[in-house]
């Protein structure tokens, strides 16, 4: 466990929820098709997406019935680096495991598709193939899981100029369908808040890595840090 204290939970429950988290944030998963269509409508005008549907949709997601079947997460963070620098780092998907806690590896298959390996409970893994659905260098990347994924998911990350001298506003929108079946649904409902938590900490690690060159840890020794 990286951190017993952050979520206040322990043991098996925690493992189960982290699995859910992982899938949420990592895969940056999918409001499914309806949502990605909605997001796509915002293309082209960064300011529109900054103050437009994205964050409002996320803020509403607790109450809205529109995406009741999916989990939708949106969070913005300001990073003191240029849009291009941040885009380049993210677009090389092999970098993602450096700051996404539950992504074990991402292997490019061709120019747009990649195979994701995600940590699952009890030391297992889940794999799926994800494809880039939108790609504007220095501006945005969107991706979606391909047919056959156990957890349908999609994600979109936008890079928007912050006020002059203040770096880049990075907004991640992540959506995913809970694991199929009654059990998956029950678990997802139980820990509804947790994917957001995981997305928050993944984005914080991204910011740390980009601004400081390392991921901050308060562990006293590498052995604990590795086990975390």
């Amino acid at each position: 466990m990286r951190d017993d204290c952050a979520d206040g939970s322990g043991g098996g429950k925690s493992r189960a929820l982290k699995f859910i988290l992982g899938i949420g944030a990592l895969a940056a998963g999918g409001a499914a098709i309806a949502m990605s269509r909605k997001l796509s409508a915002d293309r082209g005008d960064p300011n529109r997406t900054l103050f437009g549907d994205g964050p409002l949709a996320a803020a509403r997601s607790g109450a809205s019935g529109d995406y009741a079947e999916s989990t939708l997460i949106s969070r913005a963070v300001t990073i003191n680096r240029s849009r291009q620098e941040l885009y380049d780092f993210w677009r090389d998907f092999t970098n993602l495991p450096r700051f996404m806690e539950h992504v074990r590896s991402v292997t490019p298959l061709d120019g747009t598709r990649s195979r994701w390996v995600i940590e699952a409970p009890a030391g297992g893994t889940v794999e799926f193939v994800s494809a880039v659905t939108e790609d504007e260098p220095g501006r945005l990347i969107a991706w979606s899981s391909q047919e056959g994924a156990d957890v349908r998911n999609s994600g979109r990350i936008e890079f928007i100029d912050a006020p002059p001298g203040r770096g880049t506003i990075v907004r991640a929108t992540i959506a995913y369908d809970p694991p199929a079946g009654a059990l998956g649904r029950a678990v997802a409902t139980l820990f509804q808040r947790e994917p957001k938590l995981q997305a928050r900490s993944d984005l914080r690690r991204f910011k740390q890595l980009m601004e400081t060159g390392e991921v901050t840890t308060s562990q006293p020794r590498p052995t604990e840090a590795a086990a975390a």
Partner: protein
Amino acid sequence: MRALVWHGKHDVRIDNVPDPEIINPRDAILKVTSTAICGSDLHLYDAVIPTLQSGDILGHEFMGEVLDVGSGVGNLKKGDRVVVPFPISCGSCFFCGKQQFSLCDNSNTAEKADMSETLYGHQMAGIFGYSHLTGGYAGGQAEYVRVPYADVGPMVIPDGMEDDQVLFLTDILPTGWMAAENCDIEEGDTVAVWGCGPVGLFAVQSALLMGAHRVIAIDHYPRRLALAKQLGAEVLDFREVRVWEALMDMTGGIGPDAVIDAVGLESHGFRIDNIMDRVKQATFLGTDRGAVLREVIIACRKGGRVSIPGVYGGFVDKFPIGALMEKGLQVKSGQTHVHRYLPELLRRIGEGEIDTTFLISHRMPLEEAPEGYRMFKEEPNECTKVVLKTGH
């Protein structure tokens, strides 16, 4: 190694724990030579700061010798003697760029930052040995300590300066200095300081150095008041006088131009509001006792400045927002941006302008740290500052 470990309320012990090691390129490992118990450590000792866990190593005022550095630390080498600021700062985020080092965006960990974001709306920076709200870092009341972002924080101390002269650069001296700076002192100003603990006493010294016409210090421990007097303050014992009335009398009815709350969330006092606060704090109905905070705001002159270096963690009942607004007061607060003040304060110590050693009432080996905590807590009149020495 040996380290001071928190086990619970009023239960700290010296335990054997594994030595820290380098993890990240910008880390250093320090061999601690001197470390102090801070007044804010007593808030941990009293268990009024949440998220401390049994097994945590305390201590955020420490200095020592560089034992090892990561590949990313170019400005330190093995054997350097350094003091370490208590807030951890990355040096490259928006806040560090503005010299607001204690607001660093990257030094809390990605997971633990959630707690302070939930409490305060935004995450706190990392602080050594000060609960998991601030990252859960092991502190420096130990033989060794891991220092993250060591290329930003530690400052090398020139040969010829004793540990005791410079140890307080880690926290209480810059904290008193920033408290006075936050008063935006103008010619002719009277500054009133509540609390003559280490921070309050350094605030007295700093305010006078910054040109305050007079400084009035308020406490109820005779020895602490005597120290304030020795530094040039006029003093008030709040057991003997009504503070507001005394201040109005001394300032011709105008009130102090600037006020400093160097007490924080565990204020003493026998007024009814404070007794109510104590009950609420003990029963978790409220978190912070606010008697001093209320008093400084009521005493401050119209259009004056309120500086709050005292630690608060949660909520204060009956905050006099009406007085704050109607009197047009300005408030400045915050954990200290220690890094910002180090070079200037080191110079002033070197030139004899600021004395730090007057404060130290007790020096003891690290092994006796639990007794140091007990004394600092229970004998505040005699025990003004405890410095712990490791056996290196």
